[in-house]
C-alpha cells in the first residue's frame, strides 16, 4: 500500500501573511473556505493549477508550499 504523502505550509504562510483568513485565500484562488481547510488538514490534494495559484498568492515557489514525501507518513497541516 503506497504511503506517499503531500504536505503543505499553507497554514503557516497564511499566518505569516497578516493572518489571512481561509475564506480570503479561498476567494483569491477560486476555492471555498471548506476546501482550503481540507487542504491544510491534508484531506484534499489540490490540482496543480490551484497549487500554483496558492503559491503565487504567497509569492513562493510551488515546492516551498507543497512537499512530496515519498514513502513518508502524512503530516497533515505540515506547518504545525
Amino acid at each position: 500500500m503506497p504511503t506517499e504523502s503531500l504536505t503543505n505550509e499553507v497554514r503557516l504562510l497564511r499566518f505569516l501573511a497578516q493572518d489571512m483568513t481561509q475564506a480570503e485565500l479561498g476567494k483569491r484562488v477560486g476555492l471555498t473556505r471548506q476546501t482550503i481547510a481540507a487542504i491544510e488538514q491534508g484531506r484534499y490534494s489540490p490540482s496543480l493549477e490551484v497549487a500554483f495559484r496558492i503559491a503565487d498568492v504567497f509569492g513562493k515557489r510551488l515546492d516551498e508550499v507543497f512537499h512530496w514525501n515519498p514513502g513518508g507518513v502524512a503530516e497533515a497541516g505540515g506547518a504545525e
Partner: protein
Amino acid sequence: MSPFEKRAWLALWSQCPPYLVYFLIQAECPMWLTTFLQRIACLAIVAGVHAIAYVTGLLVMKWQERAEPLLLDERDRAIDGRATRTAYFVMLAGMIVVGVVMPFSDTGWKITNTALFAIVLAETVRYALIAMGYRRTPRLAH
C-alpha cells in the same frame, strides 16, 4: 460544513423516510392499495412530502447562506463526479432489471414500483456518497 454537503444531507433526509414508507407499504401491505386511484394517491402523497421537505430545507439554507455566494470549486466537482459515476451504474442495473428482465415475468405496478425503487436507490447512493465524500475525501481526487 460545506453548503453542498448540507444539500446532500437534506436530499437524503427528505427523500429516504417517505419513500421507505412507500416501498414498505407496497411490499408488506399491498391490500391497503387496491385501486389505481389509491396507488396514485399514495405515490402523490409520498412525492409531495419529499418535495415539501426538500424545498423547505433548501429555502432555510438559502436564507442562512444569504451573506455568502454559493461557490462550486474543484473539490465539490470531484466529489460530485465520483458520486454521480457510481449512481449511474446503480441506475443502469435498475433499468436493465426493469426494462429487460421484468417485462417477461411481471406487469403493471410491480414494474412501475421497481423502476421507482431503482431511481430512488440511485439518488440515495449519489447523495450518500457526496455526504461521505466531504467526510473522508481521498487525498488524490483527480
